């Protein structure tokens, strides 16, 4: 554990010396926040809370890109080789990536919530405990997903290709950018198989104080199980050397990490009432102008 903390502190220090970190972690989410509130939420305090949930999702999901790129960069530059000589295993190295990213995400999340409450007139604080829980599990889970991608790709080019594919799905099908409630029914059902959906919907419900305990528990469980599987897979597939290539079949391990969401998605599609709750909450928040677009089940 001490190795993990040592590495975590070092990584936090390194990140804060990188100006790009401040732009992508603080400035960009705030730009999105102000832009979205200006366009959609200036007449309704409810909407601000909903938009905050979406922006928090984007902030947390940023871990996916950041960690995969960083790990591949370290491997290609030969930095991991030097660490391999020290008495530390892959576990502490990966765990420190996840932990450091979490501590770096938290300030951005706090700033976004405070800005929404005091500058953008968000009506209430929402369910802060649920927000904290989902941000914590979401940050760790999406960091771990990023680490799997880094563990199975051989070059930066390959990493960015796979990242783009997965990220596009996360971004546009989860409710993080486009409200899930306005999708066609079949697309909403597909979205229930994505890890990003549990994060986005969970945070949007938490920030608008519409989340039930059951929903929070389901979202948290999905993210926690996804985190555990993703971490274990990335640890087993971890490579120190740029020359150690991964066979093509190993790339399918990325999909194995999404098995928990396959299970949750199947359950929600068959027996759950998640989609009804999503539509109901969206209308409650004030989606009247788009009510006609919300498909009936």
């Amino acid at each position, binding site marked *: 554990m001490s190795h993990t903390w040592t590495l975590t502190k*070092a990584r936090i220090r390194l990140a804060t010396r990188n100006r790009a970190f401040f732009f992508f972690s603080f400035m960009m989410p705030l730009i999105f926040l102000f832009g979205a509130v200006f366009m959609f939420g200036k007449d309704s305090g409810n909407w601000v809370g909903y938009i905050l949930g979406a922006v928090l999702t984007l902030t947390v999901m940023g871990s996916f890109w950041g960690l995969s790129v960083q790990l591949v960069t370290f491997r290609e530059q030969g930095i991991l080789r030097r660490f391999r*000589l020290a008495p530390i295993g892959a576990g502490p190295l990966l765990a420190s990536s996840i932990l450091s990213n979490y501590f770096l995400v938290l300030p951005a999340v706090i700033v976004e919530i405070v800005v929404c409450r005091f500058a953008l007139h968000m009506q209430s604080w929402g369910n802060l405990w649920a927000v904290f829980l989902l941000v914590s599990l979401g940050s760790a889970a999406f960091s771990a997903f990023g680490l799997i991608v880094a563990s199975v790709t051989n070059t930066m080019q390959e990493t960015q290709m796979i990242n783009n594919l997965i990220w596009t799905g996360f971004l546009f099908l989860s409710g993080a950018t486009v409200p899930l409630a306005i999708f066609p029914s079949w697309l909403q059902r597909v979205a229930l198989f994505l890890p990003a959906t549990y994060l986005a919907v969970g945070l949007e419900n938490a920030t608008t104080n519409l989340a039930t305990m059951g929903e929070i528990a389901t979202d948290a469980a999905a993210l926690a199980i996804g985190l555990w599987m993703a971490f274990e897979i990335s640890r087993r597939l971890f490579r120190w050397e740029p020359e150690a290539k991964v066979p093509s079949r190993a790339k399918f391990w990325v999909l194995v990490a999404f098995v928990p969401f396959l299970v949750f998605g199947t359950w929600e599609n068959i027996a759950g009432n998640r989609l009804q709750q999503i539509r109901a909450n969206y209308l409650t928040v004030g989606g009247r102008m788009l009510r006609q677009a919300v498909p009936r089940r």
Partner: protein
Amino acid sequence: MAEPIILVDNLFKNYGAVEALRGVSFAVPEGEVFGLLGPNGAGKTTTVEILEGMRVPDRGTARVCGLDPEKAGEQFKEIIGAVLQSTALPDKLRVKEAIELFANFYRRHINTDDLLRRFQLEDKRNAFYSQLSGGQKQRLALAMALVNDPQVLFLDEPTAGLDPQVRREIYDIIEELKRGKKTILLTTHYIEEAERLCDRVAIVDHGRVIAIGTPRELKHASAGKTRIEVKLARPLANGNLANLDGVVDVRDFEGTYVLHSARPPQTIVALVKQLEAEHNELQSLEMFSPSLEDVFIELTGRRLRD
């Protein structure tokens, strides 16, 4: 006799169709500075990386302090230190942070301020890694390799790419470690480095150890012959430099004739006479005392830098 601290027995390693190691064997007693000398691609780095636990041999055994580098895990890493052929660290890591970071990984470590002083990095303690010169980076790599006061130190081409002045600074550091009876395994393709630093040297070529001994023993094996390198205005028309008085060996390396002579003055006189007879001219002539380069040429027919 004490057990060798490093024991390598019949190592084989292939990279696809390339045979990197073809039966390498040697033993290093405690407190010795042992060199692996050979050209690029000889198998030196593969050997040392197997001993560091970074590569797995296809056949053969390697032991360091009685431990198998591949299987011993963290216990093994506690007792070794290593400088890789190229060390890379994050650009924004400060010098002092780098040493402290790696020191914290070990159960026991040397005082990091002492290390900064010893490797003349005190002035650079707060500098970022990206701001260091090549020599400073190599001194930092050495400091990090010694942070746990290892029983065995592996140095893979520690002065490659450094200018002569910096190289000598690194030699001074290694000589200080040698005086402290540190066991060191060093790989190099620099003759001067092997002759100056190593107690014993294994000459490696094409994955095999072709000679092993102290630098003095190896040079004596080439019978104390002086190397004479000659460049001529025109290639030899007829006549053969091998027949000159005292010459025991002649090789042509792209227009430079390398002669080994047991009687250098007589050889030079005979050479001048032959060139006069052929109306040829001497462009340059250099004489060298016997060195490990001569041993390598004698054994392989090639120069170390070919």
